């Protein structure tokens, strides 16, 4: 069995989680190309019982969380809590975590690295913001507006999958955000898209690595 393994949680019960679910497919496809064992907790499978069972049984090196969250927790399908500080965050020991969820870097991220010995936690200390184009809602992967937020974000996890360190992954994601912001500041960018800069800046500044 390959020792490269990735577990992905991707609920899809509302518009933002549905977008994250679709965009995570790109990550999953890459991981499979790179011969990772991929444990895909999509939709209803993104519940606490299944999550805990998969982590314990399969011992994934990397966990990629998608979903809502708060300072001390990350949630799954229908906002069921998957992982929470001092309740079950010991499950993160020895792993690399990327949490695409709101605020969880504030307490959960710090706790799981400093106390529970996760290798690294990349996440957000504020709410993760996402814009989408209403006209593309049935085709999230074609949504150019969403791509401004989700391409830099996906780069965290795809960089790790390609064999780079969490630090390099964080760095590349930050640089991609800046590149897109600078593009939007340029005369080449569509005028109506320039308004996204404020929110992209916020996501970039809220993104942290704890290691």
């Amino acid at each position: 069995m390959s020792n490269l393994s990735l577990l992905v949680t991707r609920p899809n019960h509302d518009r933002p989680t549905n977008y994250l679910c679709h965009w995570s497919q790109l990550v999953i496809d890459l991981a499979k190309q790179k011969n990772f064992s991929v444990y895909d907790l999509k939709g209803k499978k993104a519940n606490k019982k299944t999550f805990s069972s998969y982590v314990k049984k399969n011992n994934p090196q990397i966990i990629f969380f998608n979903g809502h969250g708060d300072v001390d927790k990350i949630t799954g399908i229908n906002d069921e809590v998957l992982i929470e500080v001092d309740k079950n965050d010991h499950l993160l020991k020895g792993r690399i975590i990327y949490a695409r969820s709101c605020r969880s870097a504030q307490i959960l991220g710090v706790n799981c690295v400093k106390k529970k010995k996760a290798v690294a936690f990349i996440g957000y200390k504020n709410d993760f913001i996402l814009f989408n184009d209403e006209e593309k809602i049935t085709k999230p992967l074609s949504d150019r507006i969403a791509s401004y937020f989700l391409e830099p974000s996906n780069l965290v996890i795809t960089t790790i999958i390609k064999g780079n360190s969490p630090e390099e992954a964080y760095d590349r994601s930050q640089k991609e955000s800046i590149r897109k912001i600078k593009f939007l500041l340029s005369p080449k960018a569509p005028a109506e898209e320039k308004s996204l800069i404020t929110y992209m800046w916020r996501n970039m500044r809220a993104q942290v690595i704890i290691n």
Partner: protein
Amino acid sequence: MKKNNHTPTDKQQLKEDMKQLAIARLKSIPSQYQISVGGGGGLTRKEAVENIENDSEIGKELIDIEIEFLRDMAKGELYKYE
């Protein structure tokens, strides 16, 4: 001139100015864009503006986001990423 009870203080005026600034900047976004911030299923542009007008938690956060950006740009934070 004596201030009466209905005169907004400087702090209240600043708060109101920030609110109006955030609303104006949000209104520059195309109406077909939808925003997801925090929990919940996401907002239309109209709902986002209503949240600011109603002083909801999301509304306050939207104001913070705008003000943080303007402050950071004024401080030249973008140029630190050359």
